[in-house]
């Protein structure tokens, strides 16, 4: 049942490149000896911002390393902008990567590092200087550009990594856990930067295991686990999938046991659990929309005071947990 449901949001098995596809994986597997990094992954990523989600070890970094041509697929083909990425260095003019690892030439200053990356990308002296200044400004590091990287905070280091990925104005950006280890201010700023890149028409693939970060960046997500594609699509589409399975809705109310007695007779209610301290109920239903629509009526009928209604399943965290646990 689960795999059938996933098919509905995972798209066709056959990759049919079209004008809007920036990344195409076709039947891609990657093994590291006996360890599977990715397992028969077929996916197309369109333009815009896409979130790549999965717990640690899900295959996100392998995905990004394959997409950026650092790894060769054990099986299948990987294309970016319609071109094979393996041993295709000229494609790197159009690709930027902000790697997860916190690695730098520590003895360099922020400016020096970004400028060196610009020059390595083939920019001329003057262009590299302008691009470096512009990019460092865009990530808010102008004030600290002349300090050695070894003295940077985690947030500054993440911004500097972002700058090196942006300095040659790539068309597609791959960001591997860009918010990891940053403080709330840096996190908000980095999210602003990513959203701005999306607004500027760049395509961004951002990986994360912190689901709410991605949720606030984009509705387009790809869920990976154990190297497999769990789901792909809009958050809403994935929620629709969830709706086919028991959906948990929390009702915070007074007199919850009385309310439970009424709800148990509803045909679309699968189960009811009273929360600790009788402060509310968790209702399990297959038809959340119908359930929601009848709630106001219920309140009016017998004067039950439902103080709060929410569903844990509304956020990506729940969706992800649900899919992974299945």
């Amino acid at each position, binding site marked *: 049942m689960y795999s059938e449901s996933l098919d509905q*949001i995972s*798209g*066709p098995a056959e990759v049919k490149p079209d*004008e*809007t596809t*920036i990344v195409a994986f076709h039947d891609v597997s990657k093994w*590291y*000896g006996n*360890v599977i*990094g990715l397992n028969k992954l077929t996916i*197309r990523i*369109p*333009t*815009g911002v*896409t979130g790549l989600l999965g717990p640690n*070890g899900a295959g996100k*970094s*392998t995905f990004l*390393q394959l997409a*950026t*041509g*650092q*790894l060769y697929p054990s099986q299948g083909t990987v294309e970016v*902008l*319609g*071109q094979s990425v393996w*041993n295709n*260095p*000229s*494609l*790197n*003019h*159009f*690709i*930027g*990567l902000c*790697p*997860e*690892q916190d*690695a*730098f*030439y520590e*003895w360099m200053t922020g400016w020096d590092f970004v400028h*060196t*990356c610009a*020059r*390595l*990308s*083939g*920019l*001329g*002296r003057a262009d590299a200087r302008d691009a470096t200044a512009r990019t460092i400004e865009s990530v808010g590091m102008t004030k600290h550009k002349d300090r050695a990287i070894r003295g940077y905070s985690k947030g500054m280091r993440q911004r500097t990594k972002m700058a*090196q990925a942006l300095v040659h104005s790539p*068309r597609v950006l791959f960001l591997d856990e860009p918010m990891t280890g940053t403080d709330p201010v840096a996190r908000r700023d980095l999210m602003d930067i990513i959203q701005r890149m999306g607004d500027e*028409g760049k395509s961004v693939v951002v990986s994360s295991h912190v689901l709410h970060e991605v949720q606030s960046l984009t509705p*387009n997500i790809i869920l990976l686990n154990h190297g497999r594609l769990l789901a*792909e*699509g*809009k958050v809403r*589409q994935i929620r629709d999938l969830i709706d086919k399975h028991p959906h948990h809705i929390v009702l915070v109310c007074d007199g919850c046991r009385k309310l439970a007695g009424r709800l148990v007779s509803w045909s679309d209610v699968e189960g009811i659990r009273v929360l600790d301290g009788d402060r509310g109920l968790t209702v399990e239903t297959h038809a959340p929309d119908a359930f929601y629509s009848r709630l106001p009526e219920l309140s009016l009928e017998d004067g039950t005071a439902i103080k709060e209604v929410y569903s844990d399943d509304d956020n990506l965290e729940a969706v992800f947990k649900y899919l992974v646990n299945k």
Partner: protein
Amino acid sequence: MTTASPTQIAPPSANRPAAGLSLSSLWTLYTLTLRQHQHGKRWMIMAILMLLPAGLAILVRGTAHDVPRIAQEFVFAFMFIPQALLPLAALIYASGMIQDEQEEQTITYLLMRPIPKWAIYVVKLLATLTVTIFLTVIFTALTYAAIYLGTDSNMSDVLLRCFKACLLHSLAVTAYCCLFGLLSLITKRILIVGILYIAIFEGLFANLAFGIRLITVIYYARLIAYHTLPFIATIPGGTENFAADAWQLDIATDPTLDTYPHMGTCIMVLVIASIICTALAAYLCSRREFHVKTPEKA
């Protein structure tokens, strides 16, 4: 299914450099590698090691006045430096060219640039050769200065010998760097393998009067030195050819010596071997994945 935005993706356009090789990229990579070598601690270790021959020469000058200068030159500049220090310097520098970038996880920043992997290797090797040759020339000259400065030796002759020694050592260190650069792409334990190679091949096999010494760098370096520089000193009771004795290249006892490779052949062998090693390493580099963060590492 994912909803594609209406934006159309144009293929990579022609208004950007299409070819992977841009001189500015390569020059930047070259200077970056030079700076990496400069910021590491290797040069300090090598400087201390390579000062040893000069230091020992000063010690000998101060304590043993009857040792012929030519014998000191032979021992310090043509035994100690090419047999021990040059392969060590090459090993220390060449082994880290790619492995250090990989271990420090900075190689991603290079791989994500429009530079082919083989070019990354070649440029880093060139920068490494620049550093090792620079160190070799400086410390060879210092060794000569320690032996001959302030003596009644013919300085123009000494300068010529020093110049030839610098050229020979540069050639040898080039061959060693190319060899160890290749080995560093084949094995992760390059330091152990390299030290074993230095001890067994360059130390043991090169001193055996059999064909196996033909596969050592030091054998060709010795032949070049033997062909270009006389190591004959007057000692009580006659003259002595130090090289002939020490390197088993005595024409008096070995009538086949004339059939040994000539200087031009030796130079060619070392140059061609270096080119072959570099080409092989560049090929391996171009075919290779550089794992930075994978389940293996995790």
